[in-house]
């Protein structure tokens, strides 16, 4: 199919498939999915600037769908989301400025990839360790200890949340009685800085930060992050479109797949327990880290294979988890009711 705006010929079904895969992962993990979709568009023949702009437009539409679905499920903390948006944009700008400085020194490529790799590795290992600890507590019949671990009781995240930095807000949608606005702004600024530095949306950094530092339940962290992805995606899509670097037809085709995929991902959070979502996210983050390392070491094909394999594998796992949850709920009650919430 010929795309007159970008002057590219590409298979439309592959665009729908990419949209679907990224949509499932995005709706389930609270990610924009740019780290998968942008290289995919580039491989399909779109020049890099068009790949980024078109992906941003598709992320905007897909995040709207996921946010609306998560809102229906009670997973969006609007108050927290608006505070986070205020802190993210300055962070992204500072991160981008650091990259500009590094670019002038000719150091940006390798530096960004190594930082990316170590951030992903540290986060993935931390989440995987926690997932295994929670599972072992549950297997030993100690749900209280597992719950305390998930709430971060006694950890440094909890100590941060107790600091009385005024103003303090309550977040009823997250079940948080009082949290400093400065802590939320700090999380948003830091994760925004990392996102701007690494050139990604930042969902895979923000979701763990909201869970461990702000103390949000997993599903609410996912839904609230998607609200932020929507705002940043809309801003990015508009600025790229102003420069003529968005192929709206390709974006709509990806959105067609993403619409179904993101609904499946968002609904799946209702059927999969929160600690398992963290486990899936940990595995996805670790495999992405491996892909970044492969690229840094010059194994381009391995890097792309790992990236797309992870995305397709994670989507298949999420679809299967949803199907299993629906079947189990039907067996138990005769209707489809999420068991995880």
């Amino acid at each position, binding site marked *: 199919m010929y795309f007159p*705006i970008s002057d590219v010929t590409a298979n439309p079904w592959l665009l729908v498939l990419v949209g679907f895969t990224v949509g499932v992962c995005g709706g389930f993990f609270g990610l924009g999915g740019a780290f998968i979709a942008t290289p995919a568009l580039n491989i399909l023949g779109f020049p890099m600037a068009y790949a980024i702009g078109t992906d941003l437009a598709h992320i905007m*539409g897909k995040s709207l769908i996921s946010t609306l679905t998560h809102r229906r499920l009670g997973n969006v903390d609007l108050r927290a989301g608006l505070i986070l948006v205020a802190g993210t944009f300055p962070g992204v700008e500072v991160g981008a400025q650091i990259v500009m400085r590094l670019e002038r020194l000719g150091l940006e490529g390798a530096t960004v990839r190594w930082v990316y790799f170590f951030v992903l590795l540290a986060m993935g290992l931390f989440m995987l360790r926690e997932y295994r600890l929670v599972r072992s507590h549950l297997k030993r019949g100690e749900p209280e200890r597992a719950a305390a671990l998930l709430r971060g009781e006694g950890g440094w995240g909890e100590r941060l949340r107790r600091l009385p930095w005024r103003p303090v807000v309550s977040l009823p949608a997250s079940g948080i009685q009082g949290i400093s606005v400065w802590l939320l702004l700090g999380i948003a600024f830091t994760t925004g800085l990392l996102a701007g530095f690494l050139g990604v949306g930042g969902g895979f950094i923000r979701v763990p930060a909201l869970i461990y530092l702000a103390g949000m339940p997993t599903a*609410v962290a996912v839904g609230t992050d998607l609200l932020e992805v929507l705002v940043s995606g809309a801003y990015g899509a508009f600025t790229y479109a102003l420069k003529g670097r968005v192929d709206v*037809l390709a974006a709509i085709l990806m959105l067609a797949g993403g619409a179904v995929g993101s609904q499946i991902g968002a609904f799946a959070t209702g059927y999969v327990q929160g*600690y398992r979502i963290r486990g899936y996210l940990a595995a996805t983050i670790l495999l992405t880290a491996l892909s970044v390392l492969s690229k840094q070491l010059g194994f381009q094909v391995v890097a792309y294979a790992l990236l797309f394999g992870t995305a397709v594998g994670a989507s298949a796992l999420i679809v299967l988890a949803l199907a299993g949850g629906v079947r189990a709920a039907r067996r138990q009650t005769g209707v489809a009711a999420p068991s995880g919430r």
Partner: protein
Amino acid sequence: MEALVQLLAIWHRDNLTLYAVATVLLVLGVGVIAASLAAGFLTLAGVRPSAGARACASAGSGRTPADGGEF
């Protein structure tokens, strides 16, 4: 459909501001319609939020009383 693509291609060539506004509105519009269609399809397939989840959401807690839906 073909006419719309041609119109967008003309705006992309002659008036990028108009093209940017049309892009954002079109993608958001398609997103809302697609969300409704996909949600309807999934509801028909038997996938829907439970009464319990809705009650929690409307009470503003966003989580089940026991463990926040974590396990």
